[in-house]
């Protein structure tokens, strides 16, 4: 693998008329040698070879202290990302007040409480044990028990989940035994997560821990096979800005039944029943592939990778689902829906495209979004100069084919891998070996994700765990027309006169998924890259208008 990468990178490529290798060298030169060696492996010039082989990128490794990165912590991935969007579980943060406060409905996950009969929605609440000195010294289990009891008394929820923050692991509180005890006492589902912030290298560790916990404590509790044809789960869709609502609309129109979404607009009852679906469709591969893998092993539900970001990607994903079920009725319906939805999308795109064509974007976000959104930019005729993930692993970059080659370091080894076995009664392969082979022969990919790099052009810079300082350097060197990242990067990039689109929280906009989402996105990008405001940066009396363009990489 490493050999192949070497060969690939020897051929010279250009990026925006610059030599990307030289750009990289200039940036690395600023670091102390040891740091530069480490960062070099996370800063790769793309070159796609035969069979989609790409250079090796180092990912999912610890951020060097003092480099201001984008990453959050394990707790953020577990409580904030994966479990946060489930409206009817009371999430209690066990720790001092900050962690709970900062993850209090900050991710713009939308939900529709009307879609479950009890109407429960605890997402607007922030429950915390608000640990004080006393608990740090004498232990916090007693207060945690009280907190669970109070949450139960006040709200009578179906389930309560407990999330551990840094000090909890250090003082040795056993949240799991507290949860077991309270589960027995209250007669509702109570479960805990050991997602202390210092675990792993990013929120990715927290995703994994959340996946494990949900699988262990919730999935499979309700075997009722509910009504509906073409029953699927949508995994790794968090309903930021209403994305899941738009995807649900399309599924409804196609006659596809959604058993559960992990975890946008979700309910714990749907998780409990999700193993009865016949197919798992994964949006964000990084945050949720564990549940899909475990569900297949235990219950026989296969998974496929889908992408509903981009109108054509949406159409492609719908066709993939129809192909899996293989029934003409669904195949026809999907085609009908696509034919009905696409003209409006294409008209919107055609209207906007003359103003976006040829503009250059950079995307540094997520564990899938930096990949998915390149679809939408492609539709707008925009070019992606550089992209990278905040918390992705090598398989998200290079594809799952590299899984056997990934070295497990100490940080990842500490995250529990559940040993899952076939359920003796409930394992039910949803698709016969013959049918599977037939589909695969026709090019259908099960349990696979090709990653971002094979779809990016040669010369593009792929940078893992981009730091704030590197962001500044990229901006100075390339002056892209649009930068996509999160709120932490937004205002620095915009100070340079370059618009930044938040692809975590969508800048208060959305949805951007599906067909209607694509239209929203086209208009949004048009607004951003063609805004008049940047013109006014140069005042009429300004004698040196080029000043803004004279940055040198220092």
């Amino acid at each position: 693998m490493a050999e192949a990468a070497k060969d690939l990178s020897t051929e010279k490529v250009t990026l925006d008329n610059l030599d990307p290798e030289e750009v990289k060298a200039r940036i690395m030169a600023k670091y102390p040698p040891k740091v530069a060696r480490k960062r070099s492996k996370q800063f790769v010039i793309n070159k796609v070879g035969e069979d989609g082989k790409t250079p090796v990128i180092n990912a999912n490794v610890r951020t060097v202290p003092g480099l201001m990165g984008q990453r959050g912590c394990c707790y953020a991935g577990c409580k904030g990302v994966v479990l946060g969007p489930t409206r009817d579980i009371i999430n209690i943060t066990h720790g001092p007040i900050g962690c709970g406060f900062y993850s209090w409905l900050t991710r713009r996950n939308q939900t529709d409480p009307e879609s479950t009969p009890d109407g429960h929605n605890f997402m607007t609440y922030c429950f915390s044990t608000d640990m004080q000195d006393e608990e740090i010294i004498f232990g916090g289990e007693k207060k945690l028990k009280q907190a669970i009891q109070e949450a139960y008394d006040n709200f009578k929820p179906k389930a309560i989940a407990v999330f551990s923050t840094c000090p909890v692991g250090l003082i040795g509180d056993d949240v799991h035994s507290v949860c077991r005890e309270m589960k027995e006492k209250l007669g509702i589902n109570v479960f805990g997560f050991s997602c202390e912030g210092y675990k792993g290298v990013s929120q990715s560790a927290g995703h994994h821990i959340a996946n494990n916990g949900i699988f262990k404590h919730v999935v499979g509790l309700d075997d009722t096979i509910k009504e509906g044809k073409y029953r699927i789960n949508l995994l790794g869709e968090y309903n930021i800005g209403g994305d899941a609502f738009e995807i649900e609309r399309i599924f409804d129109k196609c006659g596809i039944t959604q058993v559960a979404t992990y975890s946008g607009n979700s309910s714990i009852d749907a998780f409990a029943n999700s193993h009865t679906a016949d197919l798992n469709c994964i949006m964000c591969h990084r945050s949720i592939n564990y549940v899909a893998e475990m569900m297949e092993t235990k219950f026989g539900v296969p998974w496929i990778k889908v992408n509903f970001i981009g109108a054509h990607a949406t159409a492609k994903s719908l066709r993939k689902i129809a192909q899996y079920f293989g029934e003409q009725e669904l195949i026809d319906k999907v085609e009908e829906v696509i034919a009905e939805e696409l003209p409006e999308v294409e008209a919107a795109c055609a209207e906007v495209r003359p103003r976006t064509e040829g503009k250059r974007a950079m995307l540094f976000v997520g564990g899938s979004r930096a990949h998915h959104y390149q679809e939408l930019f492609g539709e707008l005729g925009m070019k992606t100069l550089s992209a990278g993930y905040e918390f992705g692993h090598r398989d998200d970059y290079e594809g799952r084919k590299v899984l056997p080659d990934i070295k497990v370091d100490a940080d990842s080894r500490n995250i529990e891998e559940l040993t899952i076995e076939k359920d003796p009664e409930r394992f039910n392969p949803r698709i016969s070996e013959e049918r599977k082979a037939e589909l695969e022969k026709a090019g259908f990919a099960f349990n696979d994700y090709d990653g971002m790099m094979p779809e990016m052009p040669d010369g593009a810079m792929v940078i893992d765990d981009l730091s704030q300082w590197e962001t500044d350097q990229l901006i100075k060197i390339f002056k892209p027309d649009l930068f996509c990242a999160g709120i932490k990067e937004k205002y620095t990039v915009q100070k340079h006169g370059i618009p930044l689109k938040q692809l975590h929280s969508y800048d208060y906009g959305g949805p951007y998924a599906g067909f209607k989402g694509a239209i929203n996105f086209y208009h949004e990008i048009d607004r951003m890259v063609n805004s008049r405001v940047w013109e006014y940066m140069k005042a009429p009396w300004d004698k040196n208008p080029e000043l803004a363009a004279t940055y040198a990489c220092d």
Partner: protein
Amino acid sequence: MKFAGKTDNYAATQNACNLCSPLGAALVFKGVSNCVPLLHGSQGCSTYIRRYMISHFKEPMDIACSNFGEHTAIFGGGANIKLAIDNIRSQYSPELIGIATTCLSETIGDDVPMFIRSYKEECEDKENLPALVHVSTPSYQGTHMQGFHGAVRALVETLAEAAETGDKPLLNLFPGMVSPSDLRLLKEIAADFGMEPVLIPDYSDTLNGPLWTEYQRIPEGGTTIEAIKSTGGAAASLECGMILAGEPETAGTWLDKKFSVPAHRIGLPIGIRETDKMMDILAEVSGNPIPDKYLGQRGRLLDAMVDGHKHLNGVKAALFGEEDLVAGLAAFCSEIGVIPALCATGGGAGRFEKTIKSVVPERIHRKMEIMEDVDFVTIEKALEKTGVDLLIGHSKGYAMSRRLKTPLLRVGFPVHDRVNGSRTLHLGYRGAQQLFDRIVNKIIEIKQDRSDVGYTYM
């Protein structure tokens, strides 16, 4: 220190009305020129605190971190902090690195002052070494305000020197956690009295700056290290915050003790009385009369109060947020005829009730409820019984405002569902004027909206 006990005997906190202490410290360090704040702990702390403060200020917010891993949590963070300082220096060449701890490094008992000493000793280019200032901010003690005031004190204690005064008398200003607009106002007032203000912190430019015409490694602005050093030679210190005034050890008291710089401790200058007090002190300290400009502002404010009083008399408001802000607002409300029917804070200094009562006329006390160390669930329950016309506080009161169908006037921090969080003016006669106009207009708007007819003259 926060009290362990909660109103209603709840053990847990639901919808907290306070944030954690490293946030306050990081904010203070953002108000120092050419400074990079560094949180010693898990990277989640710096990420959360950055994203949270950005949602209010909408400005660059670089805060570094020593990135603890599991290994670090077990063996200590000495190596991490040194590497972090090295890397911050090579990327940003700061003049000061402000180091605040987190609950992680505090729980394992990292000795940060010792790490700093040994870093300094081992450092090869001592002449280029930035100042390293440390403040202990475990988030299980106090609120963001303890972190804030602790960092202000740490800056002064680490850097202040017995300095010669220049041409203009120096005035140390410890403004408390107020908006960039407030900071600018305070600087303007001090300058108008002919004094040289040293504001700690001063994030008026770093967190409310223009677009850039050239790259800035660290956003321009903030109090310089030289200025902080000179605080030891100032003519006086003005420290704002009635609750803070009850703290035995602050930046102001330390300078008083160490360098005999007299400390004047007043409340946040919100409203007529506290602003008058500030003006009086400044006139005395500077030896200059109160500039006409401010007499004009005061006059116009009083004129507006006379005009608008008919709308406000008997209006009941609930005030919530950080202790000193609520105390300031309570004082102001009682000047304009608004009854501060409920005053609540997530802070727990133990002086809240007494302080609030001291600024509101005694005859109103029986109409008031004062709650310390409470969360929003407790506040909301109280309001269900009390019922007020208006809520005055930060964005986290929105859910309560929606359920109670009572409008929320946004002040203080955090304000993340409006665009002007960093531009809201609270202090001085001008701040009072703006608050007054907003409150009156809100009351008129409510009346107007509730009218079946739709009168335009109210």
